């Protein structure tokens, strides 16, 4: 290994001028500098280029380190290659016109080719650390050296660098050269796979960023490469972030320096040029555990010497040969034997350009490193928690978004309230339904916001509102009768309501109301009922006419003299007409019920008398059927009752007609009138067909007819019992049935005595 040239002179700055500035690749420039005097360097060395004046400010100063890319002996012309950046220094440099004066300091770097070429060379370069290698390669190639050279290159970015092109060119010319490129960290496998020679016969050059150099050196040492085969250099690169340590030749104020040393909170040791300790402060005592008196006259090896050989080689090269400050993390041992990690800084103690010695400061970072590890672990843990939270949060957000979208898409109005019926949620459909915006109703009582009343406009009391019943009684309500809501603009609309309590941990925390505007349904129902009503009325007139004309014909002399068959035909026509009329009557009743048009016109009547009248009228039918129809009044005093007599007639007649219809000849139909404390009971009992259990469930449904009934009498409409039940319930009463197939049925109307 050649001696570094830099060690020769005291004043290293040389005058030069810019010879050319060329763009050679994307964001990559080549600057040529012509030096005014002889400039000797070896391939692989670097220089500092100092600009006399920065056009653009740069916090890192007016100088940068560059590898020399050209070969020695070219008319004192050197070329530097670098990538552009936004730094003030580089912008200034690129704009310098030809012949601008610059200062070149150097050359530096003990990285040089061996004098003999008997050993293969392996260069391991990280990133921009390849530049000193390039000039060494150029040198070897130009001199047609038979030396085998491998280059292992690592890069952190995928960007194809300009030097790959150059390396490929070199490879074409120099058959002794090979190179491998890797994105990411260099590991032992990579090294082994790409070096042909046996490891121990090579010379290793490692250059690149500090961490890479440390890592690779360690790998090589760990795999048995001897330290004396190893050369490494931390490369400043053309990014050049290291600032020039100290200007040579500046006088130092030693008095001030001593004062600073004594009062410093850091460990400070001052040595002579050979490292012999001349002075140490009290903090140094504390960190190393040695007394100042013990330290003086010794070297810092007293507590150090634990690092590998290369470390100390590098240290001395840096401070003594390159005359640069040295910074590293170092492992040392206290007097007690305890190991500690310190951040070491060595500065040069110079006066008038003469090196007097060194100042070393140590900062015990063991605890800091532990702390950093703790902190890192904590950060990592926090990061994991954060990641988990993020995943959870995203899942929740997604679920929430789904819920929101679902609720928004539901066509029915939905409101959720707290346990005081105050609105906590309302969907869009509900906003549209009631005309209030969510902001206007949040936190307000739903009952107050939206008044609810019945068909006749009577306000529903608060405690009868479905939502309140859900909260106070845990009752799920679905309305069957029509209620009306009043919108913000005071308009009313019919609505069906389903209210459900929200139960959490066994307690009611609120309620959910689901609302549907049934205006259209109501309109359709109304139109339907009106149609039925109109059709029935229209049907009645011609049917009535047929009926009376038939009657008139039957009373005519012509008819009286007609053959028996003819008279029978007329009787059939008459009875069929009666049946159609009866059907029309039932349809009308149903349509009235469906339209809510059963207007009670109640009058006080004497039930006994009324029922007697009805039974009298029906005796003819009973006799035709050969059935005995009997009235039993069990209570002597039946109070008068206020009721719509027309409907009452219709109801009782219906029940008796049915009883007669499904009775067998020679049987009994018994009508009983009796009373409880506050209820009147009218029952109609037959001993006829009876009704099966399954049919009982559907008995009061509109148009329902049991199979038995159809077999027995195909002509019924299936409306009679529906009509009776509707009427009775309209009066506040109940219609009950008891029946057994083959044994008969009993229908019982119970009416509250105090009729409205």
């Amino acid at each position, binding site marked *: 290994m050649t001696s570094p040239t830099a060690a020769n002179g005291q004043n290293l700055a040389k005058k030069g001028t810019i010879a050319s500035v060329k763009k050679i690749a994307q964001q990559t420039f080549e600057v040529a500098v012509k030096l005014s005097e002889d400039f000797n360097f070896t391939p692989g060395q670097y220089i500092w280029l100092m600009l006399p004046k920065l056009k653009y400010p740069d916090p890192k100063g007016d100088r940068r380190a560059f590898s020399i890319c050209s070969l020695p002996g070219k008319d004192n012309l050197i070329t530097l290659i670098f990538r552009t950046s936004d730094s003030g220094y580089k912008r200034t440099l690129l704009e310098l016109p030809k012949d601008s004066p610059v200062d070149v300091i150097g050359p530096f770097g003990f990285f040089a080719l061996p004098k003999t070429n008997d050993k293969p060379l392996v260069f391991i370069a990280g990133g921009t650390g390849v530049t000193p290698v390039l000039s060494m390669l150029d040198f070897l190639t130009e001199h047609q050296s038979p030396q085998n050279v491998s280059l292992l290159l690592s890069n952190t970015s995928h960007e194809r660098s300009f030097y790959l092109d150059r390396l490929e060119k070199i490879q074409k010319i120099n058959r002794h050269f090979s190179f491998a490129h890797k994105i990411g960290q260099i590991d032992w496998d990579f090294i082994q796979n790409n070096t042909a020679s046996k490891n121990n016969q090579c010379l290793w050059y490692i250059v690149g960023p500090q961490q890479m150099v440390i890592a690779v050196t360690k790998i090589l040492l760990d795999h048995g490469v001897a330290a004396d085969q190893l050369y490494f250099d931390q490369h400043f690169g053309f990014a050049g972030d290291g600032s020039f340590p100290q200007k040579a030749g500046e006088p130092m104020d030693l008095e001030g320096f001593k004062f600073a040393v004594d009062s410093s909170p850091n460990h400070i040791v001052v040595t002579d040029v050979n490292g012999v300790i001349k002075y140490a402060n009290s903090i140094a005592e504390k960190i190393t555990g040695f007394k100042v008196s013990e330290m003086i006259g010794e070297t810092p090896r007293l507590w150090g010497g634990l690092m590998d050989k290369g470390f100390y080689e590098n240290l001395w090269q840096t401070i003594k040969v390159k005359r640069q400050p040295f910074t590293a993390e170092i492992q040392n041992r206290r007097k007690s034997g305890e190991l500690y990690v310190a951040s070491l800084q060595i500065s040069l103690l110079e006066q008038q350009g003469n090196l007097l010695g060194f100042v070393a400061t140590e900062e015990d970072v063991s605890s800091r490193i532990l702390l950093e590890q703790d902190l890192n672990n904590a950060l990592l843990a926090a990061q994991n928690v954060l990641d988990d939270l993020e995943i959870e949060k995203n899942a929740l957000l997604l679920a929430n978004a789904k819920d929101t979208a679902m609720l928004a898409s539901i066509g029915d109005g939905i409101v959720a309230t707290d346990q005081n019926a105050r609105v906590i949620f309302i969907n869009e459909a509900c906003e549209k339904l009631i005309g209030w915006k969510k902001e206007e109703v949040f936190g307000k009582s739903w009952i107050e916001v939206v008044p609810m009343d019945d068909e006749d406009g009577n306000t529903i009391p608060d405690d009868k509102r479905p939502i309140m019943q859900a909260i106070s009684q845990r009752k799920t309500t679905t309305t069957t009768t029509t209620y009306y809501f009043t919108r913000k603009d005071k308009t009313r609309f019919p609505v069906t309501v389903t209210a459900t309590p929200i139960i959490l941990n066994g307690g009611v925390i609120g309620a959910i109301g689901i609302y549907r505007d049934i205006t259209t349904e109501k309109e359709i129902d109304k139109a339907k009922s009106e149609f039925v009503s109109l059709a029935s009325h229209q049907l009645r*007139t011609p049917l*009535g*006419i047929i009926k009376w004309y038939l009657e008139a014909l039957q*009373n005519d002399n012509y008819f009286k003299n007609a053959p028996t068959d003819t008279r029978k035909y007329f009787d059939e026509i008459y009875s069929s007409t009666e049946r159609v*009329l009866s059907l029309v*009557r039932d349809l009308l009743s149903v349509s009235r019920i469906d339209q809510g048009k059963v*207007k009670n*016109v109640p009058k006080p009547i004497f039930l006994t008398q009324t029922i007697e009248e009805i039974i009298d009228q029906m005796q003819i039918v009973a006799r035709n059927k050969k059935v005995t129809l009997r009235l039993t009044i069990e209570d002597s005093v039946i109070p008068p009752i206020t009721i719509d007599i*027309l*409907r009452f007639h219709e109801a009782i007649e219906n029940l008796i007609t049915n009883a007669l219809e499904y009775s067998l000849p020679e049987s009994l139909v018994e009508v009983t009138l009796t009373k409880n404390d506050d209820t009147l009971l009218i029952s109609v009992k037959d001993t006829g067909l009876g009704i099966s259990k399954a049919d009982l469930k559907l008995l009061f449904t509109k148009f329902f007819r049991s199979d038995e009934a159809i077999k027995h009498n195909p002509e019924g409409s299936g409306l009679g019992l529906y009509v009776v039940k509707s009427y009775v319930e309209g009066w506040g009463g109940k219609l009950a049935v008891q029946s057994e197939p083959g044994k008969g049925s009993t229908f019982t109307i119970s009416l509250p005595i105090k009729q409205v």
Partner: protein
Amino acid sequence: MKKILIIEDESAYLKLLHEQLTLADYEVLDAENGEEGLNLALTAQPDLILLDILLPKLSGLEMLKALRKNAWGEKVLVFILSNVNESKEISEAMNYNVSKYLVKSEMKLEDLLMSIKVCLK
């Protein structure tokens, strides 16, 4: 001879009732709407009016209301003879002192003739 006014827009009914009542020895007057019926009633002053409800020009109930405002008309016998069988109409008619509310399709012609005979005896 007792005089009966039939106010009925359905000609089949009108014709049948006219014939049947004539056969039963009544003098029969016909009107096909409420307005004509009212005028005829006030001028001819019949013993009984058979009044339909759904009528053109003036409905049965409107005619009745107007009739009852007249000194003579206040007391004349009126049978509502209609196919309308609604509590509302029935109770309204009852307020105007009608003697009977009869639903045509619900009764026999014979029974109607009997009711009239009893009333006009």
